């Protein structure tokens, strides 16, 4: 195996188009596993939002959109938050223009946006119909089918008090 650097740090984004060839490429970094993706439409308040894959003929394309489906099991990852960046650091309030490129996080410790205030400490998390937001499995969709959409559990020390609030979580399927 060969050591390379990823195109940019997790939590950064660029609106350049020179990285198209790397779309879908996977990166193993000390902080988790990431995939290089681009968003098909603008994403407001991007930091911590949940993403869905855009498929072509059944195959993933590296193109993503905000997830707005309850218990979606085609999750493409989370938009990580950064503190600095050459192209630009992603914050909670950052707007990613359509066609931006960034690393989507698919496992490990992450920050995600709560879709509502049902997300308490240790809550099992799933996607919701709120664009990019996550809710609690037990209270949002209490059905076996929802288990397929499980994306991890909340590790915040306190419950979310407002929609759009960042909470910490561990992205993980049931093992």
């Amino acid at each position, binding site marked *: 195996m060969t050591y390379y650097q990823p195109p940019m740090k997790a939590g950064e984004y660029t609106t350049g188009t020179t990285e198209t060839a790397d779309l879908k490429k996977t990166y193993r970094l000390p902080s988790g596993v990431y995939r290089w993706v681009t968003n098909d439409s603008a994403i407001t308040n991007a930091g911590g939002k949940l993403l869905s894959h855009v498929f072509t003929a059944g195959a993933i394309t590296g193109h993503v959109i905000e997830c707005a489906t309850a218990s979606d099991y085609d999750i*493409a*990852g989370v938009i990580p938050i950064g503190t600095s960046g050459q192209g630009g650091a992603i914050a909670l309030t950052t707007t990613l223009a359509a066609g931006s490129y960034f690393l989507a996080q698919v496992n490990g410790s992450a920050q995600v946006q709560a879709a509502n205030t049902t997300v308490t400490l240790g809550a099992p998390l799933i996607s919701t119909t709120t664009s990019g937001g996550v809710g609690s499995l037990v209270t949002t969709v209490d059905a076996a089918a929802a288990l397929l959409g499980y994306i991890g559990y909340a590790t915040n020390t306190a419950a979310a008090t407002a929609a759009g609030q960042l909470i910490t979580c561990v992205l993980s399927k049931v093992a």
Partner: protein
Amino acid sequence: MLREADLFPNIGRSNPTHVRDLLLQDRVYLRMIVGHITAHDLLTAVRGPGVATVDDPDEVQDAACPPKA
């Protein structure tokens, strides 16, 4: 009989040969990663500095035969 590939979607969508070639840690990751990813994705993943490229022999031994408490 349930197989690993039945229980974990990312393993089910991977080529079994690729799954066998994974590092121990990557195999665990493949089970737990949220979203569509395959063993081939991890085998060809770009590894940043500080990420292991070979299995730690002690970890392999512990996984196969956990140390007694």
